[in-house]
């Protein structure tokens, strides 16, 4: 491989294609990110992922870790798969405290001195001129030093990152600060990425929301995400429901979307459900197809919980079934994003998408996508449209 200077791209990709698209290629350089939550969540994953995506694309990432010795952190980062070690530089805050010899070029000797912490990090930024910086984390400093002094250091780090042309991420859990201080911190940032975790029935769900501080900037909905071994953070929809009237082609849609699907059907109709998992452009999703016939509605109810979005499949040649389609949406519940798939759109007599929208009396913001599921046409587009609706953007 050719060594030598390479031009750092103007945007720092997150490595999650749907997000990068929303951000017009990634976070602009330089910029300041606040990774924020008000209780422990898995936002470190996002910080680590951001540093590693940078290292993988040939950028140098500087990771300031107040909690782990670099050897330990490097070990833990192995779950992301291969990471070019020369592109990932640590500021070692631990070895000196443990009176260990450190091999790291950048280290903080005295963790009781905010000034030492400040100057060590600044030295590293100036020397390395990293494309990305992760500071893990600011609550460590806020808990130990006077607030005003920490905020001063915080600003200095932002200025140093700007001078180096980097994207700097501050991880921060707020335990003690009041709203007014938080306002100040938000105002110092260009983007705030908020994190939350919830638990239902033994399953933890993580989600994040990106807001650009600038007026009329990017603002997403809560985006569910998961960690995939050896890959990193992906957008993850735990359940996309594929539903619609009898014989509309739901099972075919599930099969067209997924790598490996299972179908429980008898005599050509689904009697239990279809299931498949999808992985397209940084989106992972579990797809559940329901039966269409009314007598199997109880199966529908088993799977109609915690639905991220719905693909409503209708047969474009059967206007008489459209009412049943609407009724099935009501079964899922209100406020869940959905896309209508006008399937069998290649057949003679198929209604045009706008005609289906009119007959179903759909709101203006509900897309109708023409599909031919048997030939794999339009189905993936419909899923991507749905994904965009779930993620949301302003």
């Amino acid at each position, binding site marked *: 491989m050719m060594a030598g200077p390479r031009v750092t791209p103007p945007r720092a990709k997150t490595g999650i294609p749907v997000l990068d698209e929303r951000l017009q290629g990634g976070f602009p350089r330089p910029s300041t990110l606040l990774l924020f939550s008000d209780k422990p969540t898995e936002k470190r994953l996002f910080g680590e992922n951001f540093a590693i995506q940078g290292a993988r694309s040939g950028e140098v990432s500087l990771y300031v870790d107040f909690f782990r010795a670099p050897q330990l952190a490097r070990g833990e980062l192995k779950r992301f798969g291969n990471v070019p070690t020369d592109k990932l530089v640590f500021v070692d805050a631990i070895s000196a405290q443990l009176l260990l010899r450190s091999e790291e070029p950048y280290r903080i000797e005295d963790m009781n001195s905010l000034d030492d912490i400040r100057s060590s990090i600044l030295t590293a930024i100036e020397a390395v001129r990293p494309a990305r910086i992760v500071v893990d984390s600011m609550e460590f400093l806020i808990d130990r030093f006077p607030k005003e002094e920490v905020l001063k250091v915080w600003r200095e780090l932002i200025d140093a990152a700007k001078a180096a042309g980097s994207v700097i991420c501050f991880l921060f859990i707020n335990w003690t600060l009041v709203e007014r201080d938080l306002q100040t911190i938000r105002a110092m940032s260009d983007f705030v990425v908020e994190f939350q975790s919830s638990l239902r*029935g*033994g399953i933890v769900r993580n989600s994040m929301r990106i807001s650009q501080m600038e007026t009329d900037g990017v603002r997403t909905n809560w985006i569910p995400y998961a960690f995939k071994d050896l890959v990193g953070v992906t957008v993850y929809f735990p359940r996309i429901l594929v539903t619609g009237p009898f014989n509309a082609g739901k099972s075919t849609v599930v099969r067209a979307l997924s790598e490996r699907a*299972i179908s429980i059907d008898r005599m050509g109709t689904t009697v239990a459900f279809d299931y498949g998992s999808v992985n397209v452009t940084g989106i992972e999703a579990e797809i559940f197809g329901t039966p269409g016939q009314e007598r199997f509605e*109880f*199966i529908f109810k088993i799977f109609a919980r915690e639905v991220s979005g719905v693909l409503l499949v209708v047969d474009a040649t059967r206007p008489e079934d459209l009412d049943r389609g609407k009724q099935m949406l009501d079964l899922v519940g209100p406020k869940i994003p959905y896309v209508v798939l006008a399937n069998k759109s290649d057949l003679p007599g198929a209604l045009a998408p706008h005609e289906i929208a009119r007959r179903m009396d759909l709101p203006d913001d509900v897309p109708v996508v023409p599909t031919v599921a048997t030939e794999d046409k339009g189905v993936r587009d419909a899923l991507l449209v749905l994904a965009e609706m779930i993620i949301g953007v302003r």
Partner: protein
Amino acid sequence: MAPDALPRLQAVLAELRRVPDILGATIARRDGILIAHALSRSLDPKKIAAMAAAIVGTSEMAAIEMGLGEFNQSIVDTHVGKMMATGAGDEAILVTMVRNEANMGLVLLSVERAVESIAEILRVAEQAAEVTT
């Protein structure tokens, strides 16, 4: 989830697998989402979770239709062995696969103990989550 809930569920599954002739076990939510599993690599735990939910849901409905009262367990009997889907609290299902040679008395007793532990672990985890939110 309370950080220790998942390891505790894994421990319940590991304990169950120590019973002779139990081939594997999975904990799924009643709406078909995987919680934890101890299965051989050739099986897809997510699919098994979805199918178990359908089996339990269908069985529950059948039991109600037939006036047979509250659902306890579904057993799928094959020429190789049996698959048991047992309710574990309101939220979860324990799926246990056993060989036909198994001592069913012992298996059923172990499954019963396991579902009690699972229900308790999930109840505590859920309570802890409510306190912190």
